[in-house]
């Protein structure tokens, strides 16, 4: 087994503990639960015949963009990705890792990959559940794959930001939440340039590029701002972010002192 895979495997065991996995798994599924309850509520309060596919789509869109992509995905990724290096620092195991004849870039790549894969394992569960439930209500499965791809891209982009943050800052979770809710969702909703670098919007733009036209037509104004919808461009952005992140982690490990 290569050093890369060894670091990846131990990082997953270090950060994805059972209680944390269950808690974050439930958080990931909460959008699907809410969708189910909302759809059932709407059906009960209206004439069944009137609860048409359009209403089902509206609820799906609201849940996907308004809850899952811009709250649940960043929060799950924030918790996992910041702990990928944060737990090493907390457990004083950084010295164990860096005093090995392996390049810092390999460590950085393995850590960023671990942050992404762990986070995506959790966010994919919610994306899949929401996509399938919505498909059952809307009688079309055309949103399931775009949902997964968009989630993967948003998760990868967030991981790229939060993995180095977890090493650089002791209060990375707090700073990360500020970034998500104040910078991305507050300022990003008003300033197009900020929106262009918002991970969840990059994910939604990938979804919009792959999903049926109705998705893009109905998308709220704040959702992707000036970003051009398309999965290819979004995936390229996410890949560049991941690469930059791995390089940054490698560089930080090479340059910064490990005081303890």
């Amino acid at each position: 087994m290569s050093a890369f895979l060894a670091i990846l495997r131990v990082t997953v065991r270090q950060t994805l503990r059972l209680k944390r996995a269950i808690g974050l798994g439930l958080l990931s599924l909460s959008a699907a639960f809410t969708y189910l309850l909302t759809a059932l509520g709407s059906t009960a309060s209206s004439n069944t015949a009137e609860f048409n596919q359009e209403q089902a789509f509206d609820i799906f869109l609201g849940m996907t963009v308004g809850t899952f992509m811009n709250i649940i995905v960043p929060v799950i990724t924030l918790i996992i990705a910041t702990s990928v290096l944060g737990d090493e620092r907390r457990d004083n195991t950084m010295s164990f890792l860096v005093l090995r004849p392996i390049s810092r870039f390999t460590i950085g790549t393995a850590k960023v990959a671990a942050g992404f894969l762990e986070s995506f394992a959790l966010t994919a569960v919610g994306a899949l559940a929401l996509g399938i439930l919505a498909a059952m209500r809307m009688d079309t499965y055309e949103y399931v794959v775009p949902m997964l791809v968009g989630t993967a891209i948003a998760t990868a982009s967030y991981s790229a930001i939060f993995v180095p943050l977890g090493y650089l800052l002791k209060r990375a979770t707090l700073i990360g939440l500020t970034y998500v809710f104040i910078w991305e969702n507050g300022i990003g909703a008003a300033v197009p340039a900020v929106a262009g670098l918002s991970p969840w919007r990059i994910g939604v733009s990938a979804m919009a590029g792959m999903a049926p036209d109705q998705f893009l037509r109905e998308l709220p104004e704040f959702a992707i701002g000036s970003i051009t919808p398309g999965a290819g461009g979004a995936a390229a952005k996410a890949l560049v972010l991941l690469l930059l992140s791995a390089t940054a982690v490698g560089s930080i490990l090479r340059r910064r002192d490990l005081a303890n």
Partner: protein
Amino acid sequence: MTTSPALVDNPTVEINAVSKWFGQKVAVSDVTCSFGPGLTGLLGPNGAGKTTLLRMLTGLIRPSQGEVLVKGQEPRTQVDSYKELGFVPEESALYNMLTGQEYVTYGARLSGVSDPERAAKAALEEVGLTADADRPVGGFSKGMRQRTKVAVALVHNPEILILDEPLNGTDPVQRAHLISLFQALTERGNTVIVSSHVLQEVERMTDRVIAIVDGKLAAAGDIAAIRRAMSDIPYRVVIECDKTRTLGAALLDHEGVFSVTVDERSLHIETSDLAGLGSIIAGLAVTHDVRLSRFAPEDESLESVFRYLVGGR
């Protein structure tokens, strides 16, 4: 041939005019020394700068000034040098969810060992942890955790082993086992550097000491030689006899005796003339009908050397 006792011939580890400061605080100041095959004790009180020096040695932190070389390479930039370097940090540094075997195997794998599982088994056996190898290290006692860290530092068979307070938390049996392991390594030609603030530990392991006080190199070399070099400091001698007051009074008349402290069974003497005291003590005992049971210098212990070094600042 080197002239300074802080330097050795054919060094494997070199510290050249190294200083480290954190903001306004100077942790290590202009230290030059070197280490070669054999065991060297890095000695100093808590906060003296030992850990900072060791962390610079391993490349975990950069010197603010000067350079550190491990086998001619700077470890921080030449990661290949870690093939020849094993480090036991003072802090925990363990993955609590891994078993002892998994943890040491992980270290072996990252160090490029060809058969990591087998190397890990051998290293765990060397530190006496074979029976507990399949238990999570999170449940280990402090002594077992220390030994696990030693195992992971040894697993890739490095030429240079750096240990920061490795005997902390170990019981006397474990301590004796680890000390004999370190000594065995030196017999194989390894360079072993052990830091400690517990003087007796270092004294049991080695004669060569680098003493750090307040971040500065306070003394280096053989413990007894360091003591002899401190000619301006009185020697301390302990005498055990049956009539301490009688002998104490007689000794006060002897030129060169600065002070005599008497208790029920022994006398503690401070003198500038150790040889002279040794030559008259038997005669004094006969004259005053005193039965001597012990006459020994107190100063050649590391404890006293250390006390002088710290007290002199």
